[in-house]
């Protein structure tokens, strides 16, 4: 809220089976790619990172990690609610993890915000010799489902920042700019901005404040 130039924030939810490397992917993105990495205040299950698309445009991702174990599947809706984008990760050496990813994607398409941008990431390309999911197969699936797709390696830092930049470019930046700036005006520092919309709100309770409002004009 400190200035009107603060970057636009987007909520990104991270889904995928345990051990596909989804947190490593994000840690790689958050720690390596840019200089302004800042330790999270609580813990690394929630991280933020900004991406500069050009001189004027900076996108801030708020990255929500989810537990990948099957038994915690029912918690996921708490996390992807209101998410602007999702990264669904599988492990290219584990075909079952792609199946799991597909089931997450189906769920997102059914339950999440209809405008959510979904990216599929085939992680662990560093283990090429053990590859069990062919690139073409996943690519074809992603195309059919209208997903962004990249193969990545958190370990080798391959395609990691590309993945997030790709998502950033797909985000509805202008729309969000209006919405987020508007919100700020109501919240604090732009006195004139939100004033009009405020009159009449909370009217029920402000009788007797009339006197006060005259005073307010004098200061």
């Amino acid at each position: 809220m400190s200035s009107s130039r603060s970057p636009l924030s987007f909520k990104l939810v991270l889904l995928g089976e345990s051990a596909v490397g989804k947190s490593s992917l994000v840690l790689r993105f958050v720690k390596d790619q840019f200089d302004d990495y800042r330790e999270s205040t609580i813990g690394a299950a929630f991280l933020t990172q900004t991406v500069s698309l050009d001189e004027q445009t900076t996108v801030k991702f708020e990255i929500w990690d989810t537990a990948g174990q099957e038994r915690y599947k029912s918690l996921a809706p708490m996390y992807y609610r209101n998410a602007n984008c999702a990264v669904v990760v599988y492990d290219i050496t584990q075909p079952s993890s792609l199946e799991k990813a597909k089931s997450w994607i189906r769920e997102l398409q059914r339950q999440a915000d209809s405008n959510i941008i979904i990216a599929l990431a085939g992680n662990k390309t560093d283990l090429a010799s053990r590859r069990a999911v062919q690139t073409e197969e996943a690519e074809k699936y992603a195309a059919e489902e209208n997903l962004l797709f990249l193969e990545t390696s958190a370990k080798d830092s391959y395609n990691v920042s590309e993945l997030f930049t790709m998502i950033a470019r797909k985000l509805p930046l202008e729309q969000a700019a209006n919405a987020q700036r508007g919100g700020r005006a109501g919240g604090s520092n732009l006195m004139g901005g939100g004033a009009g919309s405020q009159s009449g709100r909370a009217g029920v309770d402000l009788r007797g404040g009339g006197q006060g409002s005259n005073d307010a004009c004098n200061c």
Partner: protein
Amino acid sequence: MRHRSAGPVGEYVRSFIKGFTKKPYRVADQTKLILDFLDFISLRMRECEVWSNVSSTEFENATEAMEKLIMNRLYNYTFSPAIKREGRWSVQTDDLERDRVLKQRIRLFGWIDETHLDVPVGDHSKGFVDFAIQELLKINHYKAPRDKVICILNCCKVIFGLIRHLSTQENADNFVPILIFVVLRANPDNLISNVEYISRFRNPERLSSESGYYLSSLMGAIAFIETMDYTSLSNITQKEFEENVEDAVQKMSAQPESAEPFTPVQFDTGKLEAGDTSSSPASVQMTPQGSGSDGEDGAPRSPHTPNMPNRQGSTDPYLLDGAGGVRTPTDDGSEFGEDHRTVQESQQSSATNAPAPNRSKRSDFSNFLPSFLSEANILQTPQTQASALPLLKRLQAQEEEGDQQRQVAQIDRAHIDAGVETLKSIFAETDSSVCRLVLEGCDGDVQQAIDKLLEMS
């Protein structure tokens, strides 16, 4: 002249509280009224001279303080267990019923241990878990939504302390099971009421990012517990699960004096008894540390309205019919007027002398907050703490002062002692005197002391 500029704000606040407490609004309307009013009042505050020159961080703090002020006043009208305790209005939500069901359900799961949730165990992990439990239990000691959120965040921070301590990966895969385990072991009173209250009344903008993540995680943990069966757990068969639950039922019905009447395993009980202990914040089982350091709710309720300096006469009626409460001895109009002026002056001097924090005022205020609530500690940037919250800070202090001021010294000592004990439980090999030194070095801030000791170990 200067201090008068804030007058209208106080006037608006009083009118709003008076209007709000006149009749029971629907919950959704309560939320809208409060959030709209906070938006509105922040604009009015910006127009006041007092806040016209402060940095945006300082101003944000002032709006935070305003949220706290309003919600402290309206707590008995908005927090379901408090509405019920007051008995003025009927509770419109199912919060209390859900609280009761959850509370009872968790009591059936007292036998669940780390292995059932794949929670890693290592040296000192019990200390961390106990500490996280204590932090979570404090949620009932505070009224303001932000303060309740901070209890949740502190709990989560301790959990991450454990994760780091055990050198496991810091991610949701490891965090969520421990959080569930902590919730099961803590079994806080009014957990659902608290979570709902936060979602309803915490400024949504400030509930969006990190706080939102951890609140959602807690909601997830609750949802998990609400639906948990043997398939949700590791290392247990259906038979064992059922036997354990059966045992728990037996034990619970064998100790009727220990708690509310028990309704057996099905949780869809339509008729729930009124007046059970779980719905009253006053019955919180406080941990030694909790009760010693920050029992805001422990003090007698004093829903007084601070007098604004030049409106002493006209505000008295508000005190009577608006809040209906009894003033505490410290809440004296003239005294407030004086304090108020002092703050104005110091505010001005700090404004002219660059951003030098007003130390005396700040430490004054911090007496009323437990140290780990102090903003520099876990959540906020140092500037946040350094900035004075001019008028509101005073209002807030007045609000919370009451008897507590007299007990501050005592509480400080108790807090340090309890803190040392906590540290000792986590760092068993570290000498008590070292724990004490580190803790005192951190101004009694247990969180910070843990971080320090972790670095040392």
